[in-house]
């Protein structure tokens, strides 16, 4: 066990370690991927990193407020399409999305500003929606987010003139590579960590643990939740924008129940209450999905071909999520951050279990 250095720089390192450790993990993953230089693995890792941004965005809201949101994928859709509107296919655009306003119909923006604008649009929608939804209590808010997801899906599927409806938008420039995704995800981590150690994050978490007490202590719960929602929507929207520039094509059904479930599963499996949980969850679940995907396609192991029937990926993922919920409710990380190793102290966490253990 390394003896802790009680010097000022050492203390700062210790304080920032939860964030730094995660950044180091991501850099290692990126370095390994680039070193292996296999296009398929590049794809998988890039997609995982983009999902990381989305899940970190979800965590920023869900982890700090304690409200389960099923609707964040709606913000992802908004961001994805917003980015596509700006960068896509100059000759095709007026034909497939004629309803777009003039200033965007005949213009294209470069990738970086487009993604930021896309994230901002998602954040704006979050502000409008959250203004109403964040007044509701936990369960009510969750149901409302589910309704939001459905509303986004319906609008984007049917508003043909603007989104090309259920037909795909094609021709989006594919520019997102492993280095770009890594930088973006590290940026997302910094934002999320910055939020959770700020006074906003602390205030919000106090309301998560005991809403009545938080209000009594002067926390404006509604305001804090709204702030977190808007910030999280920006991150998720930004992730969506990156996603559309990774896939190259878009259609509304990508951003519905399946993706909502997978991202939520990643967060739950890793641990809903910590940033490390989001990261660990994404990495573990992405790896699992990749293994299962290969098994579905058919893999050779010691001369035997193993092939899982299609759909088993999702079934197994669902079962994994249920197992975590039942046996390890706080997730693989127990909803704790990665802390600098030091001598164990006498603090323990007081579990808030209900008296009714039925």
């Amino acid at each position, binding site marked *: 066990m390394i003896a802790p250095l009680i010097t000022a720089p050492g203390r700062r390192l210790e304080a920032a370690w939860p964030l730094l450790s995660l950044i180091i993990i991501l850099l290692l993953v990126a370095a390994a991927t680039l070193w292996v230089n296999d296009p398929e693995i590049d794809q998988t890792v890039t997609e995982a990193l983009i999902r990381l941004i989305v899940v970190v965005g979800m965590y920023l809201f869900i982890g700090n407020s*304690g*409200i*389960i949101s*099923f609707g964040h994928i709606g913000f992802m859709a908004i961001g994805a399409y917003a980015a596509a509107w700006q960068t896509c296919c100059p000759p095709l655009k007026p034909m497939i999305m004629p309803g777009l306003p003039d200033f965007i119909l005949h213009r294209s923006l470069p990738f970086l500003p487009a993604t930021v604008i896309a994230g901002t649009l998602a954040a704006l929608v979050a502000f409008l929606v959250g203004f*109403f*939804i964040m*007044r*509701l*209590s*936990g*369960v*009510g808010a*969750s*149901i*409302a987010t*589910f*309704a*939001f997801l*459905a*509303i986004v899906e*319906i*609008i984007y*599927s*049917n508003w043909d003139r603007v989104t090309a409806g259920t037909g795909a938008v094609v021709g989006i420039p594919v520019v997102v590579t492993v280095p770009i995704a890594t930088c973006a995800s590290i940026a997302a981590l910094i934002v999320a960590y910055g939020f959770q150690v700020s006074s906003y994050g602390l205030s919000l978490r106090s309301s998560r643990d005991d809403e009545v007490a938080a209000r009594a202590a002067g926390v404006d719960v509604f305001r804090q939740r709204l702030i977190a929602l808007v910030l999280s929507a920006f991150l998720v929207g930004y992730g969506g924008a990156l996603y559309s520039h990774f896939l190259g094509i878009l259609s509304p059904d990508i951003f519905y*129940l399946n993706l909502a*479930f997978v991202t*939520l*599963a990643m967060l*739950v499996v890793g641990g809903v209450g910590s940033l490390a949980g989001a990261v660990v969850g994404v990495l573990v679940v992405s790896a699992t999905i990749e293994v299962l995907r290969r098994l579905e396609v058919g893999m050779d192991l010691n001369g035997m071909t193993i092939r899982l*029937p*299609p*759909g*088993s990926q*999702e*079934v197994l*993922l*669902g*079962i994994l*999520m*249920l197992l975590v*919920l*039942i046996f390890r*409710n706080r997730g693989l990380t127990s909803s704790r951050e990665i802390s600098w190793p030091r001598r164990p102290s006498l603090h323990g966490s007081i579990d808030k*279990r*209900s008296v*009714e*253990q*039925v």
Partner: protein
Amino acid sequence: MISTMLQYVIDALNLGSLYALTALGIGLLFGILRVINFAHGDFISVGAYTLIVPSTNALAVLYVGALPWPLVVVLTALSVIAVAMLSELVVFRPLRSSSPATLMIGSFALSFVIQHLILMVHGSRPKAVNLWPELATQVELLGLRVQKLHLVTVGTTAMLLGILTVLLRATRTGVEMRAAAEDYQMARMLGIRANAVIGGALALSGLLAATASLLYTAQSGIVSYQMGAPLMMFAFISTVIGGLGNLLGAVFGAFVVGAIEVALQATLPDQLRPFREAFVFTLVIAILLWRPHGIIEARSSRERV
């Protein structure tokens, strides 16, 4: 003019009946288990898929669906109830003492698993199912031509509602269930067997889901692995309107939703019609804001000081 209005009324009653059956199933489980069962729509899908031979072929071959109708009803009900019981054993019971959020995510995961199990066995393409074509004929009623099937739907729902009301109000099991729904722990301290009450609630919920699945399949003629989702969403809205935990309110809410949907279908201009579902969902949010406990507050949900 009057005949069009009557037609709308019948359509609304028909839709409302389907939503009422589903909403009751959700409401029962919420009342007793305090679970928001996202998988209820998938219980309905399970019921529909028992009608056909398991295969990934595009063409569905009737299996249970080809039997005489009493058998169809019984077998479908049994299979849905079995899935409901299994869900209780594997998901709801282990999570019994968890937070409402965990329960919600758990039922979401259950829904996901059931959907994809169906997909594994039957494939992802929707299939056409011809159930009880003899009910597609029309009869004359009050000067209108109404599908027999719609009459059967409304009639069956009314009958089931009646039976359920009698069961809950006048039988010992019903009183025990209502007690458990209000205060589960106190009910147990009075000797009420928890597992029996839960089993009863699941069986009823399964029966309601099975009925809904048969009627819905007969009407729509299609089964798909995500077919339960829209029904579930609308049923959820109904329970929210009626107040979570209030069974009568759920039924009321269901008919309100049916009426709204028919009204929107009739009045919205063509371009906006596909968005009518979005309007209905927005309504949910609006209602939740206005009355977090639903339009019809359950009498028992008011705080006792």
